Every structure is written in structure tokens, then in C-alpha cells.
């Protein structure tokens, strides 16, 4: 067991998979010699060499096109798109190419690749470098979508993603890179599609993802201490496949549900989950499901403004308290 940053966990995860399988290759902008703009891939170039770890031109379409072309022949590329906002530059691959290949080819074409990307706000980068776009990926049939919140999950879910036969979009959160967590020694392999109850509770379920997980946990601690409200916090971890069993099971126990999303309000992932809960567990609910989200505005750059729009522990505490006392 060792303490590792989320950032170093990314490196360890990729190294673990590249050591295991020579078909795993890794490329992206500034990822090899420079070690990544977020320093998430330092040392991989030295360890695995220029054949397997490559700096690419700043060409997102060519990066994802090359990744998929290679994957169609059986290689298992990990491609980095530096900021998830840049998905919009190469969205054809994410929306039209990766997810449709297996279906349109009668199962002949496989697309066993991983796109890793730095997602989310908190770094004051403004509207084009701070977005949370996991909902963009979630809406497309044929993709798998994960967003880990801890160093351990980074490794386990990355391993699962690399070993998965389908395209996996792997959202790392920029504001979590510096956070630390205990990570066991040796190989770590998790499973896609499993949520994790990170704090058990009986009064309400809070569903969170990535950076919102520590904020939800913080809020839950305060809700218990200050208001005697005992919240269950679930780290959703994987949007596709979605662990509906864990989510609906929790709702059946607590009878209230809150989602904490960094996505802008409209069509955030919580909307879909709330809709599933309404369909499947309506009579388990003692009150309306509540979504805590970023408002439907572009993200501002200034720290004071950015802090106002992202869900905070304060806002979660206040929203849960008010809803439960209504």
C-alpha cells in the first residue's frame, strides 16, 4: 500500500497495461517527451520508448483517426485528448466512428481503444478548457464512459478500459490530479459498470461523479454533524454501463435522491439517472429527486465567478437540508 496522487496513478495505470500487453500503445499531444501538460504521463516515454509512446502533432482528428485505424487491426491504443473540450474538434470519431464500427460491420470491426482526457473545472481556464463533457459521451450508443474520483480507481478503471473490447472514454478530472489516495501494491484491475457506495447512509442518496464525489462526501459529513441527516454517497464511476442496481437499491433504502453534477443543467448525466429512477423506483421515493448542477451558462474564468457556479459542499448541504425538511 502506498499513497499516490491521482496524477501519478494515471502514469502507473498506463505503465501497468503497457507492461502487460505489447499491443497497448499510447499517444497524444505533448504526452511523451514533455510528459503531458498535466504531468500525468511522466516517464512513460523513457520506460517504453518512442515506438510505443508518441508525441503527436496538434491534430485531434488525426489522433483519434489513427487510434481507431490501429484499433481496427487489433492494437489497443490509448489516445489522449488534452482537454475534453477538444472533443468538439474531433467529435466525428467519438460520435460517428468508434461507437458505430462494431454495429455497422456485423461485429467484424472491433474498436478496443481508450481516449483519456482532462475534464472539468476548478482551474480557472475559462469556457473552452474547463467543461465537463461526460454527458456528451454518455449520450452516444456504442461507447463506454468512466470518470474515476480516486487514484485507486484511476488505475483499476484504466486497466478495465484498456482490456475492454469496446471504445472507452476515460474522463480524468483536472482538479483531482493533485489529490492523494491509498493504492495497493501490485496489479489493480476493476470492472466497468460498477458504482461504489463511498459512504453508507439511510436518509438520502447522493449520486456524484469525479470532483463532485469529494464534495458530496464533505457535504455528507456536515449534514450528519450539523443536521443529523445521514446521507449515502455513491460514486457513480461509470456512466456507461451504468450500475442501475446499486443506484436503485440505494434509493429503495433511503427514499430520497440527489445528483451532484458538474455538467451544465440541461441534459446533464443526472437528468438521465433521475429519469431512470422515476421509471423504475417512483414509488420508493418520499420526495422529488433533486439535481444539483452547474447552471446552464458557459464557464467563467475568474476564480470568484467559477466558484459561484460549480456545486459546492455548501450548496449540497443547503439543498439536501431544505429538501428533507420541506
Amino acid at each position, binding site marked *: 500500500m502506498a499513497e499516490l496522487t491521482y496524477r501519478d496513478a494515471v502514469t502507473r495505470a498506463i505503465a501497468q497495461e503497457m507492461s502487460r500487453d505489447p499491443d497497448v*500503445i499510447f499517444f497524444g499531444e505533448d504526452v511523451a517527451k514533455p510528459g503531458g501538460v498535466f504531468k500525468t504521463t511522466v516517464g512513460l516515454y523513457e520506460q517504453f520508448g518512442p*515506438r510505443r509512446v*508518441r508525441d*503527436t*502533432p496538434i*491534430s*485531434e*482528428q*488525426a489522433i*483519434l*483517426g*489513427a*487510434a*481507431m*485505424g*490501429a*484499433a*481496427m*487491426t*487489433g*492494437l489497443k491504443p490509448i489516445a489522449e485528448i488534452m482537454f475534453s473540450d477538444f472533443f468538439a474538434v474531433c467529435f*466525428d*470519431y467519438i460520435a*460517428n*466512428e468508434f461507437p*458505430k464500427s*462494431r*454495429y*455497422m*460491420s*456485423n*461485429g*467484424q*470491426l472491433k474498436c478496443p481503444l481508450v481516449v483519456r482526457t482532462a475534464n472539468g473545472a476548478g482551474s480557472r481556464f475559462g469556457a473552452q478548457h474547463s467543461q465537463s463533457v461526460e454527458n456528451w459521451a454518455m449520450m452516444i*450508443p*456504442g461507447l*463506454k464512459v468512466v470518470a474515476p474520483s480516486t487514484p485507486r480507481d484511476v488505475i483499476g478503471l484504466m486497466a478495465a478500459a484498456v482490456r475492454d*473490447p*469496446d471504445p472507452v472514454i476515460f474522463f480524468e478530472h483536472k482538479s483531482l490530479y493533485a489529490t492523494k489516495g491509498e493504492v495497493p501494491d501490485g496489479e489493480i484491475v476493476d470492472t466497468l459498470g460498477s458504482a461504489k457506495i463511498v459512504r453508507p447512509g439511510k436518509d438520502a442518496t447522493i449520486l456524484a461523479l469525479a470532483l463532485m464525489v469529494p464534495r458530496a462526501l464533505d457535504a455528507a459529513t456536515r449534514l450528519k454533524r450539523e443536521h443529523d441527516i445521514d446521507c449515502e454517497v455513491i460514486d457513480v464511476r461509470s456512466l456507461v454501463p451504468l450500475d442501475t442496481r446499486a443506484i436503485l437499491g440505494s434509493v429503495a433504502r433511503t427514499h430520497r435522491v440527489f445528483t451532484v453534477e458538474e455538467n451544465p443543467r440541461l441534459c446533464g448525466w443526472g437528468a438521465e439517472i433521475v429519469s431512470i429512477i422515476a421509471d423504475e423506483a417512483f414509488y420508493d421515493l418520499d420526495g422529488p429527486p433533486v439535481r444539483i448542477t452547474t447552471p446552464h451558462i458557459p464557464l467563467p474564468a475568474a476564480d470568484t465567478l467559477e466558484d459561484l457556479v460549480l456545486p459546492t459542499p455548501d450548496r449540497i448541504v443547503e439543498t439536501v437540508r431544505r429538501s428533507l425538511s420541506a
Partner: protein
Amino acid sequence: MLAIWVMGCLAAREALRERSMAVANRKTRPAKSSVSAKSARRDVAAKPAAKPADKHAAMRAATPAATPAAKGSVAPVLAFSREQELAAYRQMLLIRRFEEKAGQMYGMGLIGGFCHLYIGQEAVVVGMQMAIKAGDQVITGYRDHGHMLAIGMDAKGVLAELTGRRGGYSKGKGGSMHMFSVEKGFFGGHGIVGAQVSLGTGIAFANRYRGNDNVCLAYFGDGAANQGQVYESFNMAELWKLPVVYVIENNRYAMGTAVTRASAQADFSKRGVSFNIPGAKVDGMDVRAVMAAGDKAVRWCREGNGPYILEMMTYRYRGHSMSDPAKYRSREEVEKVRTEHDPIEQVRARLLARKMASEDELRKIDGDIRKVVNEAAEFATDNKEPDPSELWTDVVR
């Protein structure tokens, strides 16, 4: 008499831009319509391989080591042996008849959705196919029926995909634009204009990574050549020396917009200049010229020199898709290409003039091909529709 076909089919207002190119081509382009003593001698020199391992082996073996022309120039047209001419004739005729049948079935309502016919462009895929070996890969856009037939995919499976039947290559879930045969090295069949260029570059990357000597042919049109990602991939391919031949099928129209109205640089063989990718302009109506250029380009890639661009000057006789009446060009323009430059007629004329085949032999080939196509049509009509349960298969594993 030797004016290349482009000159013939271009209206006067477009001619000026092309003239310098055409003149340059004329200098290096030998006669192609008549039997000359020179070409006859070349025929004698071409020796077919004894026992071909596959149907194209004889043709490859028979190709004399082409004298590499300078970068950007027209590859020399080499004479074909009898076997080569006949094989090219058969393959091109199969595509022509298949596409005519597909057009007919579309008109009858048996085929829905899009249907982009390859009629007129047959020499491009057939010639290129003659230049590659087993293990090489092919990827193209949505005008893909010809590519699939040329690579040896079954006409039945292709046509049944067009009619949306369970016997289609994608069980009806792909349609005209999305078919694949990984077994044959055919990676689609792509509906998004230009994506096949980046994907083909990725396939070439995998070849290089694995250290094999396979080459990927990435076909795209003059329209796709104006997509941004093409140049991202050109850069990456040259930077990493990837074995990919970019085959630009310049059929003169990007959907309904003439090349000169859509392209600032309409000489697509030069589109790689700023990346140091060599390019050649090829008479894509002459299967011999295509094979010669393809041979050179493929060798360049196989030897580890990086990518190569071939601009195939070709022509599509039909509209962009079945729903396009092609009112953006004159009937005369189409007729002129059909009568003076038809890729199949060229081979047919040579076969007869050089007494490589009799009318009867050619009639028999025609009959055989009609039979193949009719059987495919029958299969595609009678084959069962897909089971609704297929909706849920192969989404993810």
C-alpha cells in the same frame, strides 16, 4: 487525337486552368487507343507468372520494374499481358454490371437509402487492386461497391446489404455505405467524408508498428480532399513514415460542385507538397496507367519511405447518388467521356485489336458476369429480412 480526356470533357471556361497540366501530361503519355509497334513489343516482353497464387499474382509478376518517374510526374503506362487485360476486363465489367443492377433495383424500390454508383470509375480500383498483395488493406468512403467487388468480396453479400437482408455483409445494419470484410482486408465503407483518410493512416500506423510490409490504400474523392483532417493525417503519415497510399479519385465533381468551383488547388497530386509527400497524376480511365502508378506508389510505401499520393483522373457517369439527376453538367460532357474514354471499352478494344481475345470470348465473359450479377440480385431479393433481435446485437460486447 492524343488530348487526354479531361480536356475533352471540360468546358472552355474551365480549360485554361487545366491546360498547362494537360500539356505536361501529354509529353509523357504514350498513345493508348491504337496498336503501335512499340506497345506490341512491350506486350511480348511482358511475361506472365507461371502459376499464380492468387488471381492478381500473374499481373504483378508480369509488370516490368517500372522506371520511377520524377516526383509528381505521370507514371509510365505499361502494356498488359493478355491475362492482365482479361482479368482487368472481367473485374471492371463485374463492377459495371453490378452497379447497373443496383441502379435498376433502386429504381424498383428494392434498395432504399443512399446508393452511390461507381460506374465510370472502375479502372481505378481494379488497377490499384492489381498493384497490391494479400495482407494489404483497403479503406474508402461511401462510393464503395466497386472497391468491395475488386477486393474479392461476394457480390451476393454486397447486394443483399443494399437490399437490407440478413445475408448482407452487415446483416442489413450497415447499408450501402458501411460494409466491411476484415478477412479480405477491406475496412469499409465509411459514410463520413474524409474519415477514411485518418482511419487508413491509423491502419498504416499499425502496419509500421508491427513491422510488417503491408500497405494501406486509403481512397477518397476530390470532395473529401478538401476536408481538414486529410491534412492532419498527411502530416502525421509523412512524419511517421506510414505506409499508406492516398488514392484521390478525382471524378470531377464533389457531389454536385465541379472541382474547379470547389478547389483552389485542383491539381490534387500536389496536395502533399507542403508535407513532402510525393504525388502523381494518373489517367484513371486507363487501368494500365493505374496499375503502373499504383505499383510504384505501393513499392514506395512498402520500402518504408512513407506515404504517397495518387490523383486518379476519372469520371462518374451517374449522379452523386441515385437521387441526383446531375443537372450541373451537360449530357454531352458525359457522353464524350463514355464514348471516348470508357475504361472498359478501352480494354475491350485493345483485346480485339491485338487479337488477344475474340468477340465470342468476350461475349462469354459478359454472359458469365451477367449470371453472377443476376444470381446476386436473386439472392438479394429472396434473402430474408434481418430478425428484429439483430437491433440489439453488436452495439457493444
